[in-house]
């Protein structure tokens, strides 16, 4: 088993862990969303990698082509990308509203303001 054969999966796992790490470790609300986006993107790779066969085409029958890639994961990931975009958009909209309400987008400062209020 050659490590390079699974390079896609290594990259996917690296992105997955990086994304989660950013979500946990960063206090800035926008940076957290960036982390979340990276985390979601890694899943796209997990789906696409096994369904792509190198040298194969989209499954349209034509003379000269014998190998076809599985189209279903590609379609699923198109849907997942749309979901991801919607999530990040909503998240950023919330951050804008939080900034209007608190005047900051740092988690610890928001927490402090809430503590002072109660």
């Amino acid at each position: 088993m050659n490590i390079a054969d699974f390079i896609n999966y290594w990259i996917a796992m690296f992105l997955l862990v990086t994304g989660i790490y950013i979500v946990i470790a960063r206090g800035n609300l926008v940076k957290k969303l960036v982390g979340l986006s990276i985390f979601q993107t890694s899943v796209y790779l997990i789906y696409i990698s096994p369904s792509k066969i190198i040298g194969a085409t989209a499954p349209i029958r034509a003379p000269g082509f014998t190998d076809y890639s599985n189209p279903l994961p590609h379609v699923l990931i198109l849907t997942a990308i749309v979901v991801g975009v919607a999530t990040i958009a909503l998240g950023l909209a919330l951050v804008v509203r939080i900034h209007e309400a608190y005047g900051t987008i740092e988690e610890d400062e928001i927490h402090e303001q809430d503590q002072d209020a109660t």
Partner: protein
Amino acid sequence: MIESNLPALQVVLPLIAAPLCLLLRRSTLAWLVAWSASWSAAAISIAILLKVLSSGTISYAFGGWAPPWGIEYRVDPLNGFVLVLVSVVAALIVPYARRSLLAEIRSRQHYLFWTAYLLCLTGLLGVTITGDAFNVFVFLEISSLATYILIAYGQDRRALVASYQYLIMGTIGATFIVIGVGLLYLMTGTLNLADMAQRIAQMPLVRPELAALAFLTVGISLKLALFPLHLWLPNAYAYAPSVSTAFLAATATKVAVYLLIRFMYTVFGQSGIFDNLPFEEMLIALSLAAMFLASIVAVFQDDVKRMFAYSSVAQIGYMTLGIGLANASGLTGAIVHLFNHAVAKGAIFLLLGCVALCVGQPVISKMSGLAKRMPLTAAGLVVGGLSLIGIPGTVGFVSKWYLVMAAVEKGWWWLAGLVVISSLLAVVYVWRLIEVCYFREPSQKMSEAKEAPLSMLIPAWVFVFACIYFGLDTSTTVGTAAIAAQSLLESMQ
């Protein structure tokens, strides 16, 4: 024609009504659209459940593409039951919401609220009805995105932060679910849940299946707020508008519980994956932790909505306990408790909405003397509270009875004892509320308060009556739940 397409209409109707609300823009018009869509959805779900109970599982091939290639909507007694629960709760909340929304949200934003409400309903119904693994994810995200909006409408600015936190945790949960589904698809080559179950059963056990189980369990547990993963729930429930809290508390977590049952029993049930895995023990341990720790935390809360939010975490523990026990009584208990808790919590949060309208934020110190000024509201809260404790004659008793039975059947007397002891913790926090409402003199602000309007009290009291009715006449709820549990356990053999 219409009858054969009911499963599709169940989801499509609120889905079409949602953008309609957006286009109409008028508060009243949007409300009427939400009204008709949710009540039609409730009627459809009841029709579907009756059909399932009389003639067995319904399989609906979407667009005429035969499963497992096309998307299948599959209704058996279990998800038929959950469909009725979700859509009836949603329908009852709509008439209630009119007054409550006028007080809590600016009226030019109402149509947006109703759009999100209907989308959330669409998502929840979709997750429940679909027989396709990826469809589950898509509908879950539709409902979650709408939920974040419903929470962010809260008056308190902390609602925004609560919504943001839920967005982060919810998205991580949903992404874990996609990873799990993806791994299962890689191993089985199908997305249809029933087909997947068969293929997993025939395959030797391989590691990606274990990974898929782990990802799915953690992802779904985040959504259902299983203990250590419940952190998003208390703030979200406490700061959301009253209507959103009642709707989410009664439906959203219940659908996630259903999803856990579906994956654990239907998809992985025949695979033997649990044979060498302390999965059930782990679920029971976490459930017990939820039942005790969340109840203890609830005792010390001053914000009443927050108190009942922690109580929700504890009550979800009872459901997962029943799932973990994995025998007929336990599973019946879990499914019945899913219904019973939805009814009880629906009643409580709707009545707290009445308090919020007439007195202001339901904080325990401000609620003194509630019974003198708002007797119907206070009485309803007492019934809901008793139901959370599990007093005989209320719904809570029925489900706890089955859980205790399940523990005894397994010979785990200590577990039966723990279920009873944890109920005593509920006595403490419910009594705290009763004491303040009934035995204290009304405060200045309270003495000016009047009983809530009937448009809010009637829907709330429908839930309160349901708490008592289904506690006395258990044939409908327990009957359906027992059939559902039976069919799940049979599918495992």
